[in-house]
């Protein structure tokens, strides 16, 4: 269906919903690269006005990628819950924005609405939100998940401890873990990106992380972020797998480029559940996403990157993950050019994930070929904290020595918790207290019960 809107004496026509969504998207380099961005600020605002007037029901009626052509579209439409949708079914996209900002949208109402919202609906709303709207709405969303501890409770902020090493050196990984634990990181997960995709290395890293967790008796979970098929092989060989990780995207074709499908993810989840390693709960999946991955694989079907990103969250929620994060600035300036674009995308991703019911974290990050620096990251980190982000990353000194990009540091996590009066996950906070971590760390010392020799550092 075509949409038309006049702005400033010019009549703009958008041939279909996919185009309307793309033209309404605030400027970013990836949409320009894809050739789907608005050509002028006036065209963009015309698209935003037309989008605001669009009935939400129409979003259900006109899939941006055909049902027959894409298993993610089928998942979105087959799982749509009309009863949950009913309270907002009469609204337009603009009406939904107003409702989300209103006092009627309580945490309880937002939770009830989740199965009735589709990725395209939340993407559409986010396109007509300012940053403060993205923050304010997200701050009302509550999502709690459990494995060995509880992630996402109000008043908490969790940190993924990311102890990557350029050669997967066990001592390098262990030293970074210990450093992070001393600075309060690790309650979301202790998760290593392996430098190698060697299966034996993956298994040995899994064993290392499990030993560190066990020897320090840490109430958290561990993960080696290998490809899902490698992790399944590791499970088959008896390795201690807590969480199954995978990068995912919002179309069947981008997932194929990642070497995965919905059926493979289902199989992986069942394999992890069969191990029964989670005590309070059994959210066993960890997903990463990021705007631009579909275009990078030429698998975007003419959609804008933020709409495709939101569709990835439909894939994620199908598998009840413990953690999901957008790696917002990771891919590079061809998708998000500078700090301004990264900031907006991070807040969009967080809101869209939260509205769809995900335990949403963000890897607040940038590469050295992007126009961004630490000031941009501080701003995004602080905004996300106010928005109630579930977790952020913790990398020694913000410098990932294996992946060659800058994320947030352990210090950044301490800063954000202190600035916003947030605590780690309760089980982890109690463990830190028992181990005497904050007292020792503040004095620049190692707590007596955390001997480095216990984790092979001697």
């Amino acid at each position, binding site marked *: 269906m075509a949409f038309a809107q006049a702005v400033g004496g010019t009549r703009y026509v958008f041939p279909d919903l996919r185009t309307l969504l793309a033209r309404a998207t605030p400027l970013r380099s990836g949409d320009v*690269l894809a050739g789907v961005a608005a050509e002028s600020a006036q065209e963009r605002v015309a698209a935003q006005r037309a989008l605001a007037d669009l009935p939400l029901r129409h979003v259900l009626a006109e899939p941006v990628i055909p049902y027959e052509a894409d298993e993610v579209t089928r998942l979105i439409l087959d799982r749509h819950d009309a009863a949950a949708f009913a309270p907002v079914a009469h609204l337009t996209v603009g009406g939904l924005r107003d409702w989300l900002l209103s006092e009627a949208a309580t945490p309880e109402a937002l939770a009830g609405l989740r199965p009735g919202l589709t990725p395209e609906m939340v993407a559409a709303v986010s396109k007509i939100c300012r940053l403060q709207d993205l923050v304010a709405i997200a701050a009302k969303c509550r999502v709690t998940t459990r494995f060995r501890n509880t992630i996402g409770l109000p008043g908490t902020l969790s940190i993924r401890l990311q*102890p990557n090493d350029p050669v997967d050196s066990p001592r390098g990984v262990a030293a970074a873990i210990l450093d992070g634990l001393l600075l309060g990181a690790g309650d979301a997960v202790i998760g290593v990106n392996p430098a190698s995709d060697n299966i034996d290395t993956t298994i040995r890293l899994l064993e290392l992380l499990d030993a560190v967790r066990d020897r320090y008796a840490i109430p958290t979970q561990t993960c080696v972020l290998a490809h899902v098929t490698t992790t399944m092989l590791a499970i088959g060989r008896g390795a201690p797998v807590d969480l199954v990780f995978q990068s995912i995207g919002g179309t069947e074709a981008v997932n194929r480029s990642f070497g995965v499908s919905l059926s493979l993810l289902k199989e992986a989840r069942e394999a992890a559940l069969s191990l029964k390693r989670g005590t309070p709960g059994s959210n066993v999946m960890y997903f990463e996403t990021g705007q631009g991955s579909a275009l990078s694989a030429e698998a975007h079907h003419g959609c804008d990157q933020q709409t495709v990103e939101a569709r990835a969250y439909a894939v994620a929620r199908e598998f009840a993950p413990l953690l999901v994060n957008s790696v917002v600035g990771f891919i590079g300036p061809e998708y998000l050019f500078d700090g301004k674009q990264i900031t907006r995308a991070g807040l969009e991703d967080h809101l869209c994930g939260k509205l769809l019911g995900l335990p949403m974290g963000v890897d607040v990050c940038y590469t*050295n070929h992007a126009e961004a*620096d630490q000031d941009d990251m501080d701003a995004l980190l602080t905004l996300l904290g106010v928005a109630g982000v579930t977790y952020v990353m913790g990398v*020694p000194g913000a*410098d990932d020595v294996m992946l060659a990009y800058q994320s947030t540091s352990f210090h950044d996590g301490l800063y954000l918790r202190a600035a916003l009066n947030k605590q780690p996950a309760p089980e982890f906070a109690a463990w830190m207290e028992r181990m005497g971590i904050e007292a020792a760390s503040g004095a620049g010392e190692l707590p007596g019960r955390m001997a480095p020799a216990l984790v092979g550092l001697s």
Partner: protein
Amino acid sequence: MAPAAAPARWADLRRFTSARVALGRVGNGLPTAAHLDFQEAHARARDAVQSALDHAALAAALAPLGLPVVHVASQAVDRRTFLLRPDLGRRLREADRERLPAVPGAFLFVVADGLCATGVQARAPAVIAAALPLLARLGLPVAPIVVADQARVALGDEIGGAMGAALVAMLIGERPGLTALDSLGLYLTYGPRPGRSDAERNCISNIRPGGLSPAQAAGTLTWLTAAALQLGETGVALKDEQPQAPLLPPRC
């Protein structure tokens, strides 16, 4: 032999990693020196993105290998275009296509600048030198080396496809990080042709001082090549099954 004394101080963690551990804390912030170290490293990494291959020096370093060298470029005409238009970095400049010799069934090395030329310049010749005798045992002919400017990983697909290569190993500059400005990545693709996806490649990353040595990378490359020839593909279906040494000593 008695074990060495366990590290007693936080700063001792630095012995085990190049990561920025044990930086200290002032309140929750970074001490001034650590903060400024970071700023300096960022400035250096930003500049490294602009580095380019020195063709004469590279040709001299490759000469002892006894393979012809062909220079090509992508359709990205300059660095800014390269950064903003990865699609152009994946396509071969039209005039270069006809300069590529046909080498049906050969193993092809492409040496490419990628996001930082420094590491490629320094280490690609050593990786190829270490790999050639190992590959010879597999009985594969080796194609002329192609050196490519303003190149993304997938440019190797078009080059390899045009030449009819059986496999392409793309040696490409990884993006510069704060700790390593000179890291080389290697992507192995079986049956290269335009349209191959990243799930159809195997990657060996962090070839650099403090990372993998050229000999280690060449060893893994050869292992993967042999396995790819058996399997008839590279990518997620091809798992690196080389045995590794144990990671952690027994509980003390």
